[in-house]
Every structure is written in structure tokens, then in C-alpha cells.
């Protein structure tokens, strides 16, 4: 007879499941009333690198917020490792988040702490490890991202790529089961981009974790992603391997993957007729 119940049982059962996060028929609108998702269905595999792609403003970051429980869906279900995120109280949400790591688009390093303390921050907050052990763990993680020598620097002294790598070291310091990346390549030079790209893949394989990467850098992510989803107009318009997406018949997928300026996603924001507006003399305040 199974004595487990509640979240523990759900988590144990979920550990057998091939999916770590499942979003079913998710509807979500922002405060201004704009619909972000209208019936979104996504299943994210365990232990693989999954790319979430889509044009700007399609709600990729909102999707991450739904998975991490920062926002709740208006309708539908978000299940992470067997737990319905909407039904968790603050304590349980925090318990779930301790098993996650997230790399923010701008790094989000704490500016009043140096690199070492930034990486040590989760350890100091959640564990009572001796200082010697904290030092060893932090230096190991910094070494993994190639920045052991930058331990004494402050976030203001780091380049964009270095900041992103320090944030990555902080995200993995608690050995998470799920690692979430929000636009990890935005604003990086080709060298830093290559480094971050390799780190995502190698960390996923070495630590045996699940990686969810939100990006619109199709070419870069196609080198490392095991599966991909393209979101547009509140729904998944295509999913599968990167090769499968390249041959997808949908015009919007074709436009996105090939980086075409015009197509189903128009280049121009909706506006009045160009010539009429120029000749009409309408003055903007």
C-alpha cells in the first residue's frame, strides 16, 4: 500500500513521467486586457533542452512566469513536476522554486554584492553549510563558467557576457532540476554567445537537468535544442525538432525560421493609409 500523499506523492509519480512541465489549455491576459495566451498547450520533456521561440511580444517570458508561479493562468492548468502551480501556497511555490534555477535576460545580479557573494547568495539563504564548503561550491561553479578569477569583481565591472555567466553560476549553485533561460543570447557578442551556448548544453548533460530556453535566436538554439516550440498569437503554431520546424508548412513558422521581414507577422504596425496620412496633414501632439 502506498502511504505517500499530497505533493510528495505527486512529485514521486511525476518523476516517472517523461514530461517535467505541462501546460494545458492555458488562457492568460495582462491587466490591460490584452490576450497573451488563448488555449496554449505545451509539454516540456524531462532531461532535455527545450527551446521556446516566437516573435517578440508573443508571451515567451510570460510562459516562464507561469511555469515559475510568478503569475497564474486565467484558465487552464500549469503542472510542474506533478504539481499544479495555481494550487500551491507561497511556501510550496518557494519549495518548488528551490528546485529551479533561472537565468534572467539581464543577469539580474545583486549590485551590492560581488561575484562570489552573488553566487553564494542562494546557499547562504537556504543552507547552513560551513563557510569552507560554501567557498568550495562557489569556486567550483565559477570555474564551470570560466570566471573563477572574477570572484572579487562587482557586477558593474563585468561585461554583458560575463554577467550572464555569473548569473548562470548562481542559477546552478543549488544543483537545480530545471534550469530556465530567458533570452540568454540577447545582446551578446559572437564569442560570448558561443560560450553561453556551449554552457547550456554541457550543463544540461553534465548535471542531468532539464533546460528550458526562451529565445528568438533560431540559428543558435537549433545547434543545441532537442525539441522546440514556436508560439504565435497565443498558441503553439509548431513543435518538434529544429529540422522538423525548418520543413514546417506553416507560413508563420517559415517566416520566423527564415527571418523574413514580412509575412503573416507584418513588418508594419497597423496604421492608416501611408499616402493619405502623409497628405492629410494629421499632426501628432
Amino acid at each position, binding site marked *: 500500500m502506498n502511504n505517500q500523499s499530497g505533493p510528495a506523492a505527486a512529485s514521486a509519480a511525476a518523476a516517472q513521467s517523461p514530461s517535467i512541465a505541462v501546460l494545458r489549455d492555458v488562457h492568460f491576459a495582462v491587466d490591460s486586457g490584452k490576450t497573451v495566451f488563448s488555449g496554449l498547450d505545451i509539454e516540456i520533456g524531462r532531461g532535455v533542452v527545450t527551446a521556446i521561440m516566437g516573435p517578440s511580444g508573443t508571451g515567451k517570458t510570460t510562459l516562464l512566469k507561469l511555469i*515559475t508561479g*510568478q503569475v497564474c493562468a486565467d484558465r487552464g492548468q500549469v503542472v510542474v513536476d506533478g504539481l499544479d502551480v495555481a494550487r500551491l501556497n507561497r511556501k510550496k511555490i*518557494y*519549495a518548488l*522554486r*528551490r528546485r*529551479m534555477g*533561472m537565468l*534572467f*535576460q*539581464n543577469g*539580474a*545580479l*545583486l*549590485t551590492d554584492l560581488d561575484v562570489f557573494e552573488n553566487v553564494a*547568495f*542562494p546557499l547562504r*539563504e*537556504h543552507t547552513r553549510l560551513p563557510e569552507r564548503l560554501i567557498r568550495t561550491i562557489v569556486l567550483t561553479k565559477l570555474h564551470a563558467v570560466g570566471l573563477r578569477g572574477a570572484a572579487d569583481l562587482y557586477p558593474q565591472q563585468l561585461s554583458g557576457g560575463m554577467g550572464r555567466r555569473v548569473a548562470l553560476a*548562481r542559477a546552478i549553485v543549488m544543483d537545480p532540476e530545471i534550469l530556465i533561460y530567458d533570452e540568454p543570447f540577447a545582446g551578446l557578442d559572437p564569442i560570448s554567445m558561443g560560450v553561453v551556448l556551449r554552457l547550456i548544453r554541457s550543463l544540461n548533460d553534465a548535471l542531468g537537468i532539464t533546460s528550458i530556453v526562451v529565445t528568438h535566436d533560431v540559428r543558435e538554439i537549433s545547434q543545441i535544442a532537442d525539441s522546440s516550440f514556436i508560439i504565435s498569437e497565443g498558441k503553439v503554431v509548431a513543435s518538434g525538432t529544429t529540422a522538423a520546424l525548418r520543413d514546417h508548412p506553416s507560413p508563420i513558422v517559415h517566416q520566423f525560421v527564415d527571418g523574413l521581414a514580412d509575412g503573416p507577422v507584418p513588418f508594419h504596425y497597423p496604421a492608416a493609409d501611408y499616402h493619405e496620412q502623409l497628405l492629410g496633414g494629421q499632426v501628432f501632439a
Partner: protein
Amino acid sequence: MITILRELVQSFLTFLERVGLLVRFALRLAAILPLGLLRPRPIIEQVYNTGAMSLVIIMTCGLFIGMVLGLQGYDLLTRFGSEEYLGTATAISLLRELGPVVTALLFAGRAGTALAAELGLMRATDQIAAMEIMAVDPMRRVVLPRFLGGVIAMPLLVSIFIVVALFGAQLVGVEFFGVDSGSYWSQMRSAVELSDIREGLVKGLVFGVACSLIAVYEGYNAVPTAEGVGRATTRTVVISAVVTLILDYILTALML
């Protein structure tokens, strides 16, 4: 007419909503207070940031306000031939009113804006969101130490302000105008009662709670843009000044 009435009602409802949110924020801080007190180090750091870093402005302003009091007090008291009461008049006005009120206004301008801007920028640069993702409650880790730092620093700043201002008044009254030094200090010692000191410190503590709460609330809830952070700092100064003066009247009426 109806439009004006509707706008007035709407403004009143918005005001009530803001007050409600502020009260809810304060209750949340009160609920996590015991947890915060278990880690005194961040609180001590914030006492340094808000208190020690405000010392120069507090002492400079205290000195000049004391000197102005010395000038005005001497001018007024000589009309009645009672300039030996200069010490008493200065001390009581400083202890009961000017000390806590001016310190609170300076605190709102110096430390309050710094708190609001710091928290607003942390929000704008995702540092607060990052803490939430790391399962660290930003209210406990960031907001509470800053709030407590302000609350502890304010009565200390009020005391320093008053001492420096008394020195400033003595400088003008005794050193420049030649009021008898013995009369200045002895009259002050005999007239000032413990209740006067208590009134000043209680006001300092209450203003500390109000100004710190407003600063951390505005900063923590700032719209995460450059404009939003700017607005949060402006609101901190304006609301803190108004609330300080309203609370001053209420406290004076209660303690007289």
C-alpha cells in the same frame, strides 16, 4: 458638475485604495518582523546606510537652524529684557518640534529618496524577481532591514540634530551676543523636563516609522522604468513631508 463630482469620488477611491495597499504592506512587514530580527547584520548595515550617511546633512542643517534660532530668539527676548531664557526657548522648541520635524524632512529628502530609488532600481533590473525565483522573500531580505534601519536611525539622528542645534544657538547667543553662558545652560537645565525629551524622541520614532515605510513602499512598488523610479522618489519626499506634518499635529495634540 457631475463630471467634477465623479472625478472627486474617483480620486477619493484611488486614495483609499493606496492607503489600503500601504496598510497591507505594513502588516506584511509586521508579520515577518520576528524573522528579520533574527538576522541583525543587514539591519546594522542599513542603520549605517540611512543613519551614518545622513549625518553630514543633519549636522550641517542642525547647526544653522540652531544659529537662526539663536538670532531670532535673542532678538525677541531682548525686547522683554529676558535674553537669559534663550537656552530654554531654544531647547524646548528644538526638543518638542523643530528637532524631530526638520530631521524627518531631511531624512525623507536624503535617506528616503535613496531607499526608494534603490528598491525601485532593484525592481527595474529584475533583482527582486531574481530573489523570488531563488525562493528568497524580498520583503524579508531587502525591505525589512531597510525599514528597520530607518526606524532605528531616526531617533538617533533627531538626538544628534538637537545637540548640534543647541550648540549653534549657544554659538550665536553666548559667543556673538554675549548672553551669559551660565544663564544659558542653567536656565535650560532647570526648565527642560523629561517629558520634553520624551516628546522629541517619540516623535522621532513615529516619523521614522512613517518616513521609512513610505520610502520602502514606494520603492518596492515602483513602476520598473526610469520614469517610474523617478516618480517613486518624488512621491516619497512629498508624501513623507505631508504625513510628517500631519502626524506632528496629532502627536502634539496628544502629548500636550
